[in-house]
């Protein structure tokens, strides 16, 4: 009798405070999908967020996380910032797998939905990135680098042809190659350098709260100028984090540099 009682007590204790066991990423992902399928959105989000915290950087996991947030946003108990977090997850997926056939249209549709919801509360603001960032973003960093390398090779070949060419036409061709190649090397090289600097000095992040108010370094709200309100960043908007200090991020949003709380944005993971 005593033994039975002891076993029962042990079982109860084990049930009431069971030690947690570690899961592999694959198992955790499968469990998250199962939770998502049965409508346990919070559970799915918790599992997928834990995966991200544990350093699993994967486009599929990001898409699943976006799906979980969208499912909760559509449920009877949505949480503020669900759409922003979904946008962050989709942006992350696109960063990891550019041109993803699911993530790209979904992100566009989601941003349109966010804009539609916020348009009821305030005027929509179109914020363009800085000219330098916009030009640099035309091509990927690697493509800038490859084009610069080809241009450099052209210059080298031009020098050879100019020196060794027997006919006047050949030597003229070499001269043109040297001139054009030098200009392109300079241009593409600058693009590659700028892309590398932007990548190293800033990280893309997405606003995950319904509205993030930009502040100055001293914590005071950014003074609002005339016209459209550019002192608040809407949900789902992409900003670039340039500095971290005391739980705050210095972000670049359009042509504005200001501070946001770290809880208002989510930095996109990259490999």
């Amino acid at each position, binding site marked *: 009798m005593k033994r039975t009682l002891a076993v029962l007590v042990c079982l109860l204790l084990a049930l009431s405070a069971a030690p947690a066991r570690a899961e592999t990423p694959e198992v955790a992902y499968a469990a998250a999908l199962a939770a998502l399928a049965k409508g346990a959105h919070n559970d799915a989000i918790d*599992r997928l967020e834990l995966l991200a915290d544990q350093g699993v950087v994967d486009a599929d996991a990001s898409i699943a996380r976006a799906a979980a947030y969208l499912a909760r946003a559509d449920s009877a108990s949505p949480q503020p910032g669900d759409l922003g977090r979904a946008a962050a997850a989709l942006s992350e997926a696109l960063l990891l797998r550019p041109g993803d056939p699911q993530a790209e249209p979904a992100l566009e549709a989601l941003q349109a939905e966010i804009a539609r919801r916020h348009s009821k509360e305030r005027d929509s603001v179109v914020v363009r990135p800085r000219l330098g960032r916009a030009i640099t973003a035309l091509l990927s960093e690697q493509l800038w680098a490859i084009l610069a390398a080809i241009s450099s090779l052209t210059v080298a070949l031009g020098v050879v042809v100019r020196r060794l060419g027997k006919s006047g036409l050949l030597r003229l061709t070499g001269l043109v190659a040297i001139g054009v190649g030098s200009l392109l090397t300079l241009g593409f090289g600058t693009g590659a350098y700028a892309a590398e600097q932007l990548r190293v000095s800033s990280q893309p992040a997405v606003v995950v709260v319904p509205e993030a108010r930009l502040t100055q370094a001293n914590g005071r709200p950014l003074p609002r100028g005339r016209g459209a309100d550019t002192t608040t960043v809407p949900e789902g908007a992409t900003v670039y984090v340039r500095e971290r200090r005391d739980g705050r991020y210095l972000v670049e949003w359009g042509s504005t540099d200001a501070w946001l709380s770290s809880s208002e944005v989510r930095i996109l993971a990259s490999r």
Partner: protein
Amino acid sequence: MSGAPARFVAGTLCSCALAWTAAARADVSLTTSVSARKVEVGSQFTLQLRVSTSAGEEIGSPDLKLPPGISGSGPNVGRQSQISIVNGQMTQSIGISATWGLVASHPGTFKLGPASVQTSAGVKTDRAVTIEVVPQGSLPPPPLAGQPLDPFNMLRGMGGPGFPGFPGFPGFDDQLSPSPPQLPELPEEFKIARPLDPLAFLRARAVPRKVVVGEQVTLSVYAYAGRGSFEPGVMTEPSRDDFLAFNLMEDAHQLTGYQFDLEGQRWITAKIAQFALFPLKAGKLKAGEMSLSFVGRGYSKDPKGLKRSSSPIEIDVVEPPLAGRPPGYHVGDVGHYDLTAQVEPREVPAGGSISVVAKLQGTGNLPFTLLVPERSGVHFLEPQLVEQVAAKRGEVQGFRTFTYVVELSEPGEQELGEITLPYWDAKARAYGVARAALGKVKVTGTAKPSAGAAMPGTTAAGHLRSLLTPAPQLGKAPAPTPSPWPSRPSYWLLLFGLPLTAFLGFALADLGKLLSQRLSARRGSLTTAQEQALAQLTAAARSGDVAASASAAERALFIAIERATSLKARGVLKTELPARLAQAGVARELAERVAGLLGRCDELRFAGEALDLAAFSGETRDVCQKLGTRSARAAASGEA
């Protein structure tokens, strides 16, 4: 600040510190308490007024009406604040505690107060308190050391000259007595290796120093006085930014003081503040900077006293490990918890609701949220919270009940699942999950149409969700992407090095060619000069001109030497010439012949009629040819 430390605080801070954002109607509560209902004439006792308000409210200076026969000092005012979250709503309450030190001058029954305080809603008054004052010596003596202390007479008499001294404790005047009584054992936490200051000092202590976010750190501040009795002056609270704090001495009506001897000096010490701190973030966080003024004859002539501060302590706070972290764990949920739940009723019509009461109890800063099960047709509303969390034996513990209303919409027997709370058990250094199974509920009747379908804004989100179909399995981890070319220094070296190398290569080749041509031209000019010199020698020898023959032969030989070895032999002593030529690679015999011929040139120039000029000319030509042959070989080998 509240509790015993509050009773030391001097100065007013009400008007400047208590600005709160909420502008709701003030709900002010007042509580008055005295340290003793029965006191002796001449002995000090305290009266404390606690004021708290649950809304944004300014609290002004407190006031106390005293009857004749009672004199007082103060008030010393401390501030306190509390945050509670109920049903998802955060409520801030603030308050002050004002403490007066009182002394009765004659026996009798006295009515103290009522104490009052000015608020923005007007003057608020509490009840009066009645005390009985008895003649001196009527009450039993206070206990021996480790004894409670009157905060306004803190440590007075514990060995200080001129003070009466606690029974059983010698004053400094008694130190020469033949058999001083044994001092009581000083608790470990008070012990120090050496005094930080010869007069007085504060010491902060935090245990433990390395914790995870949400784990309790016990911060204690001790006062040490080395010049006998003192009265506390202005005191600040210990700094504790980035921590959630529970005052562990809130209910301590009296402090416990000790005295001990160290390095030949008698010290008095007492713990003046103790907080349970829960770090809110990771990092190197600082806490424990606190100041206190020691007022007394032995400390400072300044009536404000001798100010001393404790050094802040750095506490290393980290997050619990990611390995093994259960899903749904919130950073900061640290402790050891048990979870139980009650569900009522067990049968409900579709569309109706049941009550789920979950009770979380244990040690640690109890979390405000639990993980509720998510089931189709089962909807947990936000819970109502009832809590009792307090420090016991230096550890924050208690319980918090979460009362949920759960709506059930789908008929049938519903398995509710379980409520869980993942937490980090700091003592076991492992994660745990507190669980409470909810069992089954029978839902009768028929399902009602879902209200969610009609919710605005949900259609588009549903459409978005349909765009995403997560992959059924997590793909294999992709190979690490190589870093882009621009992040590699070799890329930039190649980018600019390639055209530069081509350009410089051709430029260097051209330069080499030019130099070679110039060298050849120079060599050609030496040959001509040598031939001219030899022709002049032949002509001079034929005409019998000795001096001209000597000059021409010497010139031809020097040119031949320069052609063969690049050595300008005119600058070399003739005695050293063979050795230099040999060093330059000319055969020893030939070098000797060259030197001999040059010597004969000198002989010819000064006394040379006896020489056969034709033979001399022939020999000179022969030597020049041999040097020339060597020169040609050297040039050929150089070109090869």
